[in-house]
C-alpha cells in the first residue's frame, strides 16, 4: 500500500520540480520567473492540442514518445523512493532498467532519424555519442555498488540488509559517486553545461532538436517522460546523499522530497553560474564522471573485504 501511495505521489509531483529549476534560474537573472506549476500548464496545453505529422514519417515516429515515457515510468516503479519498498523488484533489475531507459533513447533517436531532417540526424548523433559515454559511468557505479552491497537491485541498495550509506564503512567513496552521478544527470537530462534546454538555436541543440517535429500530445508524452527521467536521477542522488531507514514508512517522504528539491535547486544553480561547454569538450566532461567512479571502485578493492 505504502509503495503505491509513494509511486503515485512521485508520478503526480514530477512535473513540479523542473519549475523549481526555472525559479532558481530566474532568481539569479533578477526575474520573477514563470509560476511553479508552469510544467503542468504546459502539459495541459499540449494534451489539448492536435498532432501534426510530417508525410515522410512512419509509425516509428509515433512510437518514440510512448516508449520513452514508458521507460521513465518503469524505472520509477522499481525505485525505493524515500526507502519505501518499490512496487516491483527483482535481483538484477538495475541492469534491465538502465537498458529500458536506453530503449527509450533508442526510440527517440529512431523517431528523430525517421523525420529525415538534417538537424534531427545531427542531434541524434550527439545524443547517441554522449549517452554511450554516460553509460560507462553508470555501469561503473553499478559495479561499485555491487561491491558495497552485493546486490543488483535498487530495492536492495537502499532497503536491503547492507544499504548504501554515507556513514557506512565506504561512505567517503560515495562522495565521488555523488559528483559522478550529478554529471551523468546533467548529461542524460540535457542540462547546462552539456545541453541548453532553453535555446532556440537548432544547430547547438542535442536533445531538443530531436523532438522538434513532435507536437501536441506526442510532445506532452516526451516532456512527461523527461520529467520522470530527471526525477529518477534526482531521487537516486537524494537517496545516496541522505539514506533513510525503511522503517520510517511514509514519514520518510517529507525528508526525501526535501532532498530532491535541493538536488533540483543545485541544477538551477549550476545552470546559472556556468556557460555551456563547447561541443567537443562534452565527452571529456562526461568521461570525468566515469574516471571518478572507477577510481572509487578501485579503492574498494583495498578495504571493503
Amino acid at each position, binding site marked *: 500500500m505504502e509503495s503505491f501511495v509513494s509511486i503515485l505521489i512521485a508520478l503526480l509531483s514530477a512535473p513540479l520540480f523542473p519549475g523549481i529549476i526555472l525559479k532558481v534560474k530566474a532568481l539569479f537573472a533578477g526575474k520573477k520567473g514563470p509560476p511553479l506549476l508552469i510544467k503542468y500548464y504546459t502539459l495541459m496545453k499540449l494534451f489539448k492540442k492536435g498532432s501534426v505529422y510530417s508525410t515522410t514519417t512512419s509509425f516509428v515516429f509515433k512510437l518514440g514518445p510512448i516508449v520513452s515515457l514508458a521507460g521513465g515510468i518503469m524505472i520509477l516503479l522499481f525505485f525505493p523512493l524515500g526507502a519505501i519498498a518499490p512496487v516491483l523488484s527483482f535481483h538484477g533489475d538495475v541492469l534491465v532498467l538502465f537498458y529500458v531507459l536506453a530503449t527509450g533513447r533508442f526510440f527517440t533517436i529512431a523517431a528523430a532519424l525517421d523525420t529525415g531532417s538534417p538537424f534531427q540526424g545531427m542531434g541524434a548523433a550527439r545524443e547517441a555519442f554522449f549517452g554511450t559515454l554516460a553509460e560507462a559511468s553508470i555501469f561503473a557505479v553499478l559495479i561499485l555498488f555491487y561491491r558495497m552491497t552485493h546486490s543488483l537491485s535498487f530495492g536492495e541498495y537502499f532497503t536491503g540488509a547492507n544499504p548504501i550509506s554515507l556513514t557506512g564503512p565506504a561512505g567517503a567513496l560515495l562522495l565521488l559517486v555523488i559528483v559522478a552521478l550529478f554529471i551523468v544527470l546533467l548529461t542524460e537530462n540535457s542540462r547546462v553545461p552539456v545541453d*541548453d534546454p532553453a535555446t532556440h538555436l537548432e544547430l547547438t541543440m542535442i536533445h531538443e532538436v530531436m523532438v522538434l517535429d513532435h507536437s501536441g500530445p506526442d510532445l506532452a508524452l516526451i516532456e512527461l517522460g523527461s520529467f520522470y527521467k530527471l526525477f529518477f536521477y534526482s531521487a537516486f542522488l537524494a537517496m545516496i546523499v541522505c539514506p533513510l531507514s525503511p522503517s520510517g514508512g511514509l514519514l520518510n517522504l517529507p525528508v526525501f522530497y526535501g532532498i530532491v528539491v535541493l538536488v533540483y535547486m543545485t541544477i538551477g544553480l549550476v*545552470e546559472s553560474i556556468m*556557460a*555551456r561547454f563547447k*561541443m567537443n569538450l562534452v565527452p571529456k566532461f562526461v568521461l570525468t564522471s566515469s574516471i571518478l567512479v572507477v577510481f572509487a571502485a578501485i579503492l574498494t578493492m583495498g578495504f571493503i573485504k
Partner: protein
Amino acid sequence: MGNLLQIENGESVKRSDIPLVPFDRFAKLLSDFVRKDGFIVQFFAFVEDGGNRLLAVVRNSHLYVVSTEVGEEFPSFTATCSEKFHMFEREIAEQFGITPVNHPWLKMVRYHANYRGVPDVFGNDYAEDIPGKYPYFQVEGEAVHEVAVGPVHAGIIEPGHFRFQCAGEEVFSLEIQLGYQHRGVENLLTEVAMKRLPIICEGIAGDTSVGHNLCCCQALESLAGLSVDPGARVVRAIALELERIANHIGDLGALSGDVAFNPPAAYFGRIRGEFLNLLQVLCGNRFGKSLVLPGGVSKLMNPEQVKIIEDKLKELEPEIRHVCDLLFTSQTVQARFEHTGTVAKQMAEDLGLVGYSGRASGIDYDARVTFPTEVYGLLPANRNEMTKGDVYSRATVRREEIMHSIHLIKTLLNKSGEASSKTLMQEISLQPDAFVVTVNEGWRGELSHCLMTDASGKIARYKVKDPSFHNWTGLAMSLRNQEISDFPLCNKSFNLSYCGFDL
C-alpha cells in the same frame, strides 16, 4: 593620384568634375589603389545618356572618386585584383545586367530582375523562389553532409538561408543566401517625394535608423546647401552613440544567452531597454526615428532632458561595468568565446571588413576618426587592444566601444548649451548635376550613401551601402573548420543586418 578625384565626406561635387576615364585606365587606377591598402566604399553602376557607367568611391585616409563607361561586360577585378570587389561586382551584374567577365563566383546577390530590363546575367526566372537556377556550392564525398538552415528560423529573426557542408561536427564551407527581404529601397528613394526620404532611410535597417538617416540627411544638406546648428549636431551625435550602445549591449546579452549563461543575458536585456528609453527621452521614439531631418533635428534637447540622460548614465555605467566583468571573467564563457570563429587580419583585409568585425581583426578603421562628420572631429578616438579576430575579440571591442560611447555622450552633454533651433521637414531643392557621398560609422561599421542628381535637381541614382554588405562574407569565412554548433555564437558576434543587406 592622377585621375582619382579626392573628395571630402559629405561634400557635393559637380558630376562633370568626376573624372571619366577609359576602362583600362580605370582598371589600373582602382587595382593599384586597392593593392596599396585601399578599400572600396562604393562601387556601382548607373545609366547615363543611354550608356552604362561604373563609379567607384575608394578610401585610404581620404576619399576618392572615379568613373568609367562600359558596355555589356567588363573584366572582373575580383579575378585580377582583390576579393574586396567581389560583392560589388555581383551587385552590378544583378542591378544592371553588366557581366564582370571571369568573376570567380558570379552569383545573384538579392535575387531580383535587373533595372535595365536586359537579359538576366544569371539566367534566372524571378517568378521562381530563391535560389532560382543557382546550384548551391557542394562539397563531394562519402562523409560530407549538408545542413540547410532557414530562411525561416526558430527565433523571431530576419530571414536568411545558410548552407553548411560538414563532416560530422566540422564545417567545411558555409554559404549564405540572402535577398528574402529585398524591397527595392534604392529605386524607391529616387521615386518618392523628398519629405519621405528620411522616413524610408530610417527603415533600411531598423536597428540602424539613426545611422542610415544621418547619412541621407547629410547628403541632402550638402546638395541643398543647408547648414546645421552646432546644437543640432550635438544631438545627432548623441543619438548615434545611444544607438550604438543599445545595440552593443543587446548583442553582448545575446552572446551570453547563446552560451546559456543567463544572468548577463537578462541584465543586458534590461540595460539595453534603458538606452532605448534614453533615445525616447531625446526624440520621442525608442529607435531614434524622426529625430534627424535635413537641416538639423526635429526635437531640441532642453536642460531637463540633459539632466535625465546624465543621471541615467551615472546610474548605468557602474552596472554595465559589473555585468561586463561577470561575463568576461567567467571561465566557461571565455572557453566558448576564445578561438571561436577566428578571422585572421590578412583575411579581414582581403575581404575589407568594417566596423567592430574589422577592428576585432586588427583593422584600425573607424569612420568617426578618419572621416569625421557632425562633432566627431572634436572627440577622442577609441583604441582597442584585443585584435585576435575571434568571438572574444569582437565581444571585447563592443565592450570597449560601449564605455567609449558613454564617455562621448557625457562630453557632448556638456556642450548641449550650444545654439540650436528646431527643424521641420521642408521642401528643398537640390543642386542639379551633382554628386555627394556620405560616410558615417554606424554601430555595425561604415555606412555610406551616395546621391547623384540629374539636370533638374531630381535624384537620379541613390546608392546605399550597409556595413553588412562587406561583413557577411567575413561570417562565412569565420565558420571554416569550426564546429557547426558554434555557428549561432559566431553569427551573433557579427550580428549583421539582413534587411540592410537586402535593401
